[in-house]
C-alpha cells in the first residue's frame, strides 16, 4: 500500500489469523505500550496447537496449555476479536478454518504467526508466515513491512501418475529443489498437473512451500477457486460476488510471465513418496530404498545424512517397503481436510489395522469432522480400528499430549519429519493419506498403486 524510498514496502494485511502459541507475547507487548488492535474485524483466532483431541469435556489438563488457550480467549475478548474457541463447532487448525469459512480469497494479503500460512496461497492469496514481533506489528498497524521477494515458477506439466497425490507432488518437488531451494522466493505453482488439482490438493502443495524454504506458495485463481469459495459463510454475496469474480479474473499471472527462478517437471514423474530422513527433502519414491551417505557429494551433507540415518535407525539400502511402523497419524494442516480423510477411509474400508499399530485420525476442523461423520467416514475408521478424534494440530507437532514415545516409528500425513517433531526421539516418515492408511493396515509401507489388488 505504501512505498517510501529506503524503506521496505508497507503491505496492508487483509486477514490476520491468530492462534494461542505465537500471540500471547504480542498482545502483552501491545498492552504494555498502550496500543489498541487496529482492525479486530480483519482478525480471527482459533485454538489449535495445544487443544486435546480426546475427552474435550475434561478441558485441557496440561496447566500451561490451558493457560495459553485461556489467554487467547481473554485477549480476543478484550480486543473484540472473533475467536473459534475449543467449544465452537468451527474450531480447528487455523489453516483449515480460514479457507473453510470463506475468509481466504484471491488477491488478499494474509499473515499468521505460523510458518504453514503458505497454505492460503492455494486460493490465489499472498500468505506469509510471521513471528511474534510481526504479529504485534500487524495487530497494531494492520500492515507489515516487507522487502519484495524473488519469484519462482514451479511448472508441473501433464498429469500425475495414477496413485500419486498432491502430497506426493510436493514431497517430490522438495526432494528435487531441496529444503532451501525456495529461500527468498514466492513460488507460483503452474501447469496442467497443478490446474487439475482440487482446492484441497492445492492447499496441500502450497502448505509445504515453507518446507522448501519459500516465503509463500500460490496458485493463480480459476474456476476451481471460485467454486470452492462460493457459498461459504464469509464469501462475497450478490453484487459483491460479481465484483469479486471480475477482480479475481484479473489476477492470474501471464502465461509468459518472467520469474527470477524457474523449475519445470513432468507430472508423470511423481510417484507416491516416503521420507527416510529428518528433513522433508530426504524422500524417495515408495519403490526406492534408504540411500547411503556415500551417495552425497557435499561433506556436510554426508555427515547430515549419516546422522539422520542413525536417528531414524535405518540401514542404507533398505527397501522402503520393508520399513515397519508402530504408529500412524492422519491429519494436520497439510492433510486434515475432507478429501484427505476420504482418501484414507477408502484405503481402510473393510480392513483392519495391523496388530501392534495404533492410528490416530484427527480432522482439521470441527466442520471437517462433522462432514466426515455425515459421510460415515468415522465408522469406516472405527471399524478398521483407527481412533477418530477431535480437531487440532495434534501429533503434527505434539504440543497437546498426542505424541510418539521415544523410538517409535510413525507414518504421518503431516509436514515435518524433524528430529523430535512428533515427540522426543520419535521417528517420522511423511506420506500421503492413502499411503498412511495402507501402512496402518499392512504394518509397513506399501505401494498403494499395487496394494490390495
Amino acid at each position, binding site marked *: 500500500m505504501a512505498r517510501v524510498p529506503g524503506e521496505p514496502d508497507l503491505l496492508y494485511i487483509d486477514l490476520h489469523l491468530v492462534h494461542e502459541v505465537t500471540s500471547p507475547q504480542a498482545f502483552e507487548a501491545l498492552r504494555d505500550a498502550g496500543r489498541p488492535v487496529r482492525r479486530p474485524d480483519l482478525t*480471527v483466532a482459533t485454538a489449535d496447537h495445544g487443544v486435546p483431541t480426546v475427552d474435550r469435556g475434561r478441558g485441557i489438563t496440561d496447566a500451561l496449555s490451558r493457560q495459553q488457550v485461556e489467554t487467547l480467549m481473554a485477549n480476543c475478548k478484550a480486543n473484540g476479536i472473533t475467536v473459534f474457541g475449543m467449544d465452537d463447532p468451527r474450531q480447528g487448525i487455523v489453516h483449515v478454518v480460514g479457507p473453510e469459512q470463506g475468509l481466504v480469497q484471491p488477491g488478499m494479503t494474509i499473515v499468521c504467526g505460523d510458518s504453514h500460512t503458505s497454505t492460503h496461497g492455494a486460493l490465489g492469496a499472498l500468505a506469509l508466515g510471521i513471528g511474534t514481533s510481526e504479529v504485534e*506489528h500487524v495487530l497494531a498497524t494492520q500492515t507489515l513491512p516487507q522487502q519484495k521477494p524473488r519469484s519462482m515458477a514451479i511448472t508441473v506439466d501433464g498429469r500425475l501418475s495414477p496413485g500419486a497425490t498432491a502430497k506426493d507432488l510436493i514431497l517430490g518437488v522438495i526432494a528435487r529443489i531441496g529444503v532451501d531451494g525456495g529461500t527468498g522466493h514466492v513460488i507460483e505453482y503452474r501447469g496442467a498437473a497443478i490446474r487439475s488439482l482440487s482446492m484441497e490438493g492445492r492447499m496441500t502443495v502450497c502448505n509445504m512451500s515453507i518446507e522448501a524454504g519459500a516465503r509463500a506458495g500460490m496458485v493463480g485463481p480459476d474456476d476451481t477457486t471460485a467454486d470452492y469459495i462460493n457459498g461459504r459463510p464469509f464469501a462475497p454475496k450478490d453484487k459483491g460476488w460479481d465484483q469479486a469474480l471480475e477482480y479475481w479474473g484479473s489476477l492470474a499471472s501471464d502465461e509468459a510471465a518472467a520469474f527470477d527462478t524457474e523449475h519445470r517437471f513432468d507430472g508423470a514423474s511423481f510417484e507416491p513418496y516416503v521420507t527416510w530422513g529428518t528433513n522433508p527433502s530426504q524422500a524417495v519414491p515408495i519403490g526406492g530404498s534408504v540411500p547411503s551417505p556415500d551417495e552425497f557429494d557435499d561433506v556436510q551433507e554426508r555427515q547430515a545424512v549419516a546422522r539422520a540415518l542413525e536417528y531414524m535407525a535405518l540401514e542404507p539400502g533398505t527397501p522402503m517397503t520393508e520399513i515397519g511402523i508402530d504408529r500412524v497419524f492422519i491429519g494436520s494442516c497439510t492433510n486434515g481436510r475432507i478429501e484427505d480423510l476420504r482418501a484414507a477411509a477408502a484405503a481402510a474400508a473393510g480392513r483392519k489395522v495391523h496388530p501392534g499399530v495404533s492410528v490416530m485420525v484427527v480432522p482439521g476442523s470441527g466442520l471437517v469432522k462433522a462432514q466426515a461423520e455425515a459421510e460415515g467416514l468415522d465408522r469406516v475408521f472405527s471399524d478398521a480400528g483407527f481412533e477418530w478424534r477431535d480437531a487440532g494440530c495434534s501429533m503434527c507437532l505434539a504440543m497437546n499430549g498426542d505424541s510418539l514415545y521415544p523410538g517409535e516409528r510413525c507414518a504421518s500425513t503431516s509436514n515435518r519429519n524433524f528430529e523430535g517433531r512428533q515427540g522426543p526421539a520419535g521417528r517420522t516418515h511423511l506420506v500421503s493419506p492413502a499411503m498412511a492408511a495402507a501402512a496402518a493396515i499392512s504394518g509397513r509401507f506399501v505401494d498403494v498403486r499395487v496394494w490390495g489388488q
Partner: protein
Amino acid sequence: MEKMVTHTGRMAPLVRPNIDTDQIIPQRFLKRIERAGFGRFLFADWAEDEEGEPIASFVLNRPEYRQASVLITGRNFGSGSSREHAPWSLQDRGFRVIIAPSFADIFRANCCKIGLLAVELAPDQVEALAALAEDDPAAIVTVDLEAQTVSAPGVDADFNIDPFVKHSLINGIDGIAATLERAHMITEYEELRPGFRPSLRGSGATNNGERHG
C-alpha cells in the same frame, strides 16, 4: 529492540546444515506465555539426555564455550517453524550474533526484530571461523555492523545486509512506532479497499468461548 552496532566475543561452533527451529527450541517449551526465560531450553534435545542430564560433549555444554556470544553454524539455519521463541532462546542464552552461510527467511526476519544479528558469510569463511573456534575456544571475533565486517585471527570478511535492517538495528528502531507515524497513509488505503473483502464485523462468532452456531 536492543541496539546492535558492533560486537566482540567468543564463538561456539555448531556447523550442521539445515538446523531447524524444532532443534533450536523443541515444541514442548512453547507453552509459556512470557517473553523471557527461554534460554535454558536452547537446543534442549541435543543438550540433554532423556533423563534431563546434560550431555557433556554437546558444544554449548562444554565449559570452554560457555561464554560464547557468537554462534557459528551451517547453511539454512533456522528453517521450519516461525516460532520467535528460537531467536528469543538464543538471545536469552547470551548470543548476540549468528554467523552462517545462509538463513531461513522467517528466522532471519525474527532475529532482525529483536536485535539479534544474523550474518551471512561464504561457506569457506564460516568454516574458517568454526575451525578457529575449535582450535582456540578463547579466540575473539569482532562483528562491526557499521563497517559490515567480521574480523578474527586469520579471518577478515565483509558481509552484506539490507540497509534498512542495518539502520533499524544500529538505532534500535521501534518498527511499530515508525509505521504508526504513517497512520494517515494506512487510513487512506483502508478507505479505498473494495467492499467485497471479507470482514468479521457482525459475524456473530463467539468472543468468550461459549458455544455458538
